[in-house]
């Protein structure tokens, strides 16, 4: 088939880069909150410090990173077009300003300030959905990446809606905020927004970076549909605070989709042409055991008593959150951020000079030890927190927080390293051979 390819365009660096560079500070903040947490972090999952910590990491780090990646990928990979770069920059500024205030308000449990800052955060998310949704709707390429990103946006809207509704109920006493309703909001964000987006994006990026073959498009698409369907049923059911048996069934609905996706991802990775495993491959593969363990711990948390004493439920939920957010989402974000940002910087600085003289390559723009330090910090922090929570060990939980804060700091440094001036380590490669 001979085709006239359709050019894609990378958004300006000033639109995308601030998201990636600022995001890890949310991880640092979450790590510090965990490292200095009192013992009640193992007693109640909805205490102010715990909620602040989870929002620092999920909204501050993970969501901010996904926003930047969405703007970049929807244009550069899918051929869409962000309708206004100025609005996208404004959305980024609003997000980066409002999230820290919101996290602080939650930490202090200042409901009025939570309402104001939470509304600003919601406005930032809604503006993002509008801009990125416009870009996605106009993409000229489809596949699982587009499906995953689109489904992720739907999950984001659901998460926002529930979050605002629960905030209103908290402020004006509309109805009680039960554990089930909070769980619906949390899973809509974790599985619906972050999980579905990652499932779609990984289906594109893992074969791209490891030079593997794309799977048949239908399998990742099936995994995304199964996950999304399970999530809708889960959220609707869990919000009614059902009994234990129903909770277990609902939780089980969240397993098949990610399991199918993970299996396909492993197959793609094993079939790769590039045998050497870099930071992207390592981080991606390390994310999968965390995902699997999170599923098991999550099922245990859903079962609750008599499987565990009442006072242990918060510990199982904390372990579940650490594994899913830090171990799965976090490792995946590290994998992709450390590929996307150096390439972005290279493209905007050097592509016009490429072929006309020596230009640095990606290897000249990265600091490999820093990259691995970031991954090691997040992976160690995740497992220390999870094991510490399950075992009831504050020493391990605090160590986990320190490791997460270290990982976030190293990640910021690794990403910022790409901005330093770089020299080309070699001349442009010679032509391989001439035809005829």
């Amino acid at each position, binding site marked *: *088939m*001979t*085709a*006239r*390819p*359709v*050019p*894609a*365009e*990378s958004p300006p660096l000033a639109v995308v880069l601030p998201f990636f560079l600022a995001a890890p500070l949310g991880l640092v903040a979450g790590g510090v909150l965990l490292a200095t947490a009192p013992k009640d972090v193992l007693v109640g999952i909805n205490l102010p410090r715990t909620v602040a910590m989870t929002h620092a990491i999920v909204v501050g780090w993970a969501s901010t990173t996904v926003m930047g990646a969405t703007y970049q990928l929807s244009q*550069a*990979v899918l*051929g869409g077009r962000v309708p206004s770069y100025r609005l996208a920059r404004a959305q980024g500024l609003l997000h980066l300003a409002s999230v820290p205030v919101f996290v602080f308000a939650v930490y202090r449990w200042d409901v009025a300030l939570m309402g104001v800052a939470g509304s600003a955060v919601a406005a930032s998310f809604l503006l993002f959905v509008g801009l990125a949704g416009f870009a996605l709707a106009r993409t000229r390429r489809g596949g699982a990446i587009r499906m995953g990103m689109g489904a992720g946006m739907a999950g984001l809207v659901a998460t926002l809606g529930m979050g605002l509704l629960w905030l209103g109920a908290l402020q004006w006493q509309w109805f009680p905020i039960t554990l089930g309703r909070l769980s619906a909001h949390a899973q809509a964000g974790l599985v619906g927004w972050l999980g579905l987006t990652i499932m779609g994006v990984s289906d594109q990026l893992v*074969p*791209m*970076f490891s*030079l593997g*073959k*794309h799977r048949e498009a239908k399998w990742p698409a099936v995994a995304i549909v199964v996950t999304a369907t399970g999530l809708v049923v889960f959220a609707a059911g869990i919000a009614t605070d059902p009994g234990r048996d129903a909770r277990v069934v609902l939780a089980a609905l969240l397993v098949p989709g990610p399991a199918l996706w993970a299996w396909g991802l492993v197959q793609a990775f094993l079939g790769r*042409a*590039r045998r050497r495993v870099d930071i992207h491959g390592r981080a991606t593969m390390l994310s999968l055991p965390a995902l699997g363990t999170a599923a098991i711990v999550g099922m245990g948390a859903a079962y609750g008593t008599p499987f565990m004493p009442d006072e242990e439920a918060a510990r199982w939920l904390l372990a579940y959150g650490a594994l899913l957010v830090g171990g799965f989402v976090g490792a995946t974000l590290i994998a992709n951020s450390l590929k996307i940002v150096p*390439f972005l910087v*290279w*493209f905007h600085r*050097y*592509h*016009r000079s*490429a*072929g*006309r003289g020596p*230009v640095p*390559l*990606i290897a000249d723009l990265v600091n490999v030890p820093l990259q691995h330090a970031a991954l090691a910090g997040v992976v160690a922090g995740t497992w220390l927190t999870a094991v510490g929570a399950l075992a009831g060990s504050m020493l391990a939980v605090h160590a986990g927080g320190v490791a997460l804060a270290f990982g976030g700091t190293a990640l910021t440094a690794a990403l910022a390293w790409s901005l330093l001036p770089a020299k080309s380590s070699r001349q*442009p*490669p010679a*032509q*391989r*051979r*001439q*035809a005829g």
Partner: protein
Amino acid sequence: MEIDNRGLMPPEPMVRILAALQGLPAGEELVALMDREPLLLYGELERRGFAWTLDGEDGAYRLTVRRAVG
């Protein structure tokens, strides 16, 4: 002229193609074998006055580039 960019990571395929095009004689074409479609290359080819077509599928692309007419 043909170059084999298979197995190379971004941006090396782009750099090799643009370097090869620097010395491309008039009337000749460059054929590049690629693992991935070079989405961000096309705009730069257009800016430098080249036209292109793409054959193949994911994992086995063949990009043909020549100087644009007019």
